[in-house]
């Protein structure tokens, strides 16, 4: 396993070079082997995280220089330094999120939920500060904090917790919807009072993702989609500036200097970059042409400076995040981790897709930021925490658990002083309840014991663990969930 882990990094490179089918096959085999390593997901999460963070910092530095220059502070670096501080804080929290046992996080999630709802209430009081017409921030000297970002995380963790606990009774609507949906609706209401449409939309995505992965019936989502559309329409028509946004989206050219200005300028910036871009730091769009260039519209500047290639890199990184996040979700066996990993991934990637969608002109302009790349304090910190959790989840894949526990933490883990993850133990309370479901019980008892007991025991105790046994072990885990392991112990 060790050899596999170390030998493969270059295996990914010769992508699509081979003309002969033999090479394609060889490549596929190598890739599959690389992806089969127990820590592949973990490393992929780290890679995506690292690349997005660095790219984000570089682009914020480039995009904010003009804005910084025009505001008092550290000359060209005012915004960048702020972002750097937030990213440093985020890095520490990333490490914390990577290190803290997931069980403890899960245990804390109800508290986090209550706390974040309280914060949302507090921000509406005079404790919160009003900026650009929305009361969304706590401001303490130079530091500002946006509670809605934390709420998204709290909702994801707590919602997953509740739905997993209720797993057995989710087929009844009452249990499926209460208390997650009312709590989320309370959050929506509080966030809309700020008012912050972007935050509400993201929260909504988190809620939908939770319900989806909890296995809610598909017709609920049909209804939700209709309701959501109606709600957006109602809200948009209800408030002048949102209506303006929608109208300007439908016809951006009509009002180039007014509400459609941003949308048109974003297109111009992207087009100006062309295939290869104008070079890092050379984008003219940041010179007061593109409003919020270091924030909502940073993707347009990436297009301007790094061209289609840079944009493709960002798209590719988020696509990879989607793939890896979903891979973590499927390979884990702890239902809570499965749901959390999937939900967090959907949150980040959907947010990125919406942001990129409106920058390129596919969606109406909302204030949703590009995770890890847009400048913005709380958003960056929370996103890094989310990456930390994802990485933590990736370390809880059963193969990873077994590899880490048997082989030690590895170089990165030692460096970060990461504790070995605990293997999943199904909750004890449910055990007596389960055998009552006859078909499962039958399947389990017959197959599991005959097939697995002996090899597993041998692997763990007697032999040096190689890649194959570990992979196989995972396979069996997956094929026979939960109780299979119970049986193993």
């Amino acid at each position, binding site marked *: 396993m060790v050899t596999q882990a170390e030998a493969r990094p270059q295996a990914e490179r010769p992508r699509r070079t081979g003309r002969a089918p033999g090479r394609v096959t060889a490549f596929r085999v190598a890739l599959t082997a690389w992806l089969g390593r127990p820590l592949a997901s973990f490393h992929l999460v780290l890679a995506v995280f690292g690349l997005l963070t660095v790219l984000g910092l570089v682009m914020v530095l480039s995009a904010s220089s*003009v804005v910084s220059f025009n505001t008092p502070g550290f000359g060209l670096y005012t915004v960048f330094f702020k972002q750097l501080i937030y990213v440093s804080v985020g890095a520490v929290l990333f490490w914390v999120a990577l290190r803290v046992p997931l069980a403890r996080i899960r245990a804390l999630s109800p508290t986090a939920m209550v706390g974040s709802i309280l914060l949302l209430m507090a921000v509406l009081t005079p404790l919160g500060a009003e900026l650009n017409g929305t009361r969304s921030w706590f401001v303490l000297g130079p530091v500002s904090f946006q509670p809605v970002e934390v709420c998204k995380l709290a909702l994801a963790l707590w919602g997953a917790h509740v739905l997993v606990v209720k797993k057995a009774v989710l087929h009844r609507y009452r249990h499926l919807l209460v208390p997650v949906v009312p709590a989320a609706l309370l959050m929506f209401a509080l966030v809309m009072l700020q008012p912050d449409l972007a935050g509400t939309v993201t929260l909504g995505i988190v809620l939908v993702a939770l319900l989806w992965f909890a296995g809610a019936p598909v017709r609920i989502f049909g209804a939700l989609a209709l309701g959501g559309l109606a709600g957006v329409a109602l809200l948009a028509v209800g408030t002048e500036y949102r209506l303006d946004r929608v109208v300007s989206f439908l016809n951006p050219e009509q009002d180039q200097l007014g509400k459609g200005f941003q949308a048109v300028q974003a297109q*111009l910036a992207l087009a100006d970059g062309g295939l290869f871009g104008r070079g890092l730091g050379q984008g*003219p769009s940041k*010179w*007061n042409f593109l409003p919020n260039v270091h924030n909502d519209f940073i993707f347009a500047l990436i297009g301007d400076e790094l061209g289609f290639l840079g944009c493709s890199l960002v798209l590719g990184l988020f696509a990879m995040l989607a793939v890896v996040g*979903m891979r973590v979700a499927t390979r884990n066996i702890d239902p809570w981790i499965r749901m959390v990993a999937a939900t967090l991934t959907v949150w980040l990637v959907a947010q990125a897709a919406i942001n*990129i969608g409106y920058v390129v002109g596919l969606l109406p302009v909302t204030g949703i930021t590009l995770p890890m790349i847009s400048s913005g304090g709380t958003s960056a910190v929370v996103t890094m925490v989310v990456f930390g959790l994802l990485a933590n989840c990736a370390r809880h894949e059963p193969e990873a658990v077994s590899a880490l526990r048997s082989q030690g933490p590895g170089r990165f883990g030692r460096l970060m002083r990461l504790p070995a993850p605990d293997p999943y133990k199904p909750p004890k309370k449910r055990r007596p309840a389960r055998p009552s479901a006859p078909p499962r019980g039958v399947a*389990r008892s017959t*197959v599991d014991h005959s097939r697995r007991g002996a090899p597993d025991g041998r692997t763990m105790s007697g032999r040096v663990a190689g890649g194959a046994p570990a992979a196989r072990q995972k396979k069996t885990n*997956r094929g026979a969930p939960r109780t299979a392991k119970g049986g193993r112990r």
Partner: protein
Amino acid sequence: MAEQYRGGPGGRRPSARRAVPVRRGEAVRRPSPAPGRMRRVTKRAAGTDHRVRVVVVRFLLIAALVAAGLKLVQVQGFKAEALAERAERQRTKPIPIPAARGAILDRNGAELAFSVETRAIAYRPNPQRKEIEKEVEKARAAGKTSPLSFDHETADIARRMREVLGDQVNEADLLAKLRSDKAFVYLVDNAEPGLTRVLAEEFPQLNVENRAMREYPGGSLAANVVGYANWRSDDPDPEKHSVHGLIGLEMLHDNELSGQPGRQIVETEGGADVVIPGTERDRQPAVNGSDLVLTIDSDLQFFTQQKAAEFARRSGAKSASVVVLDAKTGEVYALANDKTFDASQPGGVDPKLLSDPAVTTPYEPGSVNKIVTAMSAIEYGVTTPEAVHQVPGSIKVADRTVGDAWSHGVLNLTTTGIFAKSSNVGTLMLADQVGPDRFSDMLGRLGIGKRTGVGLPGESPGNLIPRNQWSGSTFGNLPIGQGLSMTVLQMAGMYQAIANDGVRVPPRVVAARIAPDGTRIPEPRPESVRVVSPETATTVRDMLRSVVQKAPHQNSGTAPDAALTGYQVSGKTGTAQQYDSAIGRYSDSKYWITFAGILPADNPRFVVGMVYDTPVYSSPEGHSAALFFHDVASYITQRYNIPLSKEQAPIVPLVIP
């Protein structure tokens, strides 16, 4: 071990396992165990369902990203050219690079005129008023009161402009302009750039435009020569707005002074004129204007202007002009009128003072013109200085009788005496011996009736009747300086010829150009004209020393006041009747009083000419310009440290008893 597994129950049903939508990386996983199938048989297993849902979501997310990517292909690929062109258009801007206008320097390098960069500050009262009203309205709609108000803003601007710019502006005037009912109004024309930057940062609503201001540090010093230039914005193309000359050398040499403005394409920040670094291109550098070096000596010029004003006042003359020429080179050291405009005055210039009568207004020179006769008579050997002539009280030429300024019987005057005492009769007798043709030739060689080409705009050639149109009486007028006219420059030029040993060098006022790279390009020297032989010149010069001679027994010249202790001075007075159109003949009360002198006569350095227009003839100062000459000449000797003459001019007999 692996074999064992493959052989297990899963090995029998690989195809069934494949039906489950999990495809990737299954090489290792393929030996799927039976439970997968069991689950499906029993009921929809949670795990499988979860996996389907994950796959669906993954598909949706990637599809959204791919959709964005496809849109990017459209925007950055297919539509890129058209959109990028629009992007380029909205940020590129040609900016003119102003060319610095050259300075005008005197012969010692002192600046008579130079340009400084300034800014004009403008405001848009009506649009700004509307804008603020809209803001206030919006705030009111939101249930707040806006801190903005047009009155506050304008008051702030006026107060700060007064504080920053100082006395250049008046707060009340500014307020009136700021609150006027106009779309656009200039508040200040020539504000210092540094101070303007302070104001513009404080009030971004102020519009700032580039200007250049012409500074005339000497005020009215040499204003008649230098002229006047100011910011011209007549051209419909704002890029061509610049400082241009209106009169004087500023106008005549405008092209050389103003240079060639440059141009470059830059990209600017949105909504502002800030140039994005590194975007300058297509640069055509500006060529700065050349400096103009004059022959004028500003100190002497200042003195002569003061003296002209003083003597015009003392003599009661309508005007007075004076010119100082270098005796050898014809360079104009000073060219002054009694009054001229002050180009540095804030209100601009007084149009009544714009003319430069020293070059534009010819006059009848009177007896000063007798030098033509003197030169001809000596040159052609008609007489010698000491020759004695019997001069009657009057003489009849054609149909006219001409008398002397003082009544006398027949006098025995030496040739020197005829000129020193300015006898019309004696001069006409000599002129008669010279003859009209030779006299006419001499006038031509002296440049009378032709522009001197001094290099000033509006120069008058004077008036001289062509030889073929002379009537009988013409030749009775010209030798005594009536019936022809000349400018004070032409008059001084005649004396310059005898001061320079018979070679006349036409006067000029521009010495050289200094190109922007510092090279000095001298103006071409005018072609000099041999008028008389050096001997003749010396003789005439010596003869004319007697004009300032003071001696008993009628042996005094006409202008002993012009004498300068320690120096030999040659000169000639002149008194010309003005033609009075009201009475249709020469007036008996209006005169041109003239004087031309050479300093020092034994080693000429300077030629000075001056004229009063219509002085009070009865007053001592109005009667003769001798005192004026004396003052100017004495200043010149000090200023240029002219060594004293080796010996006093000899007293020569003028009247033989």
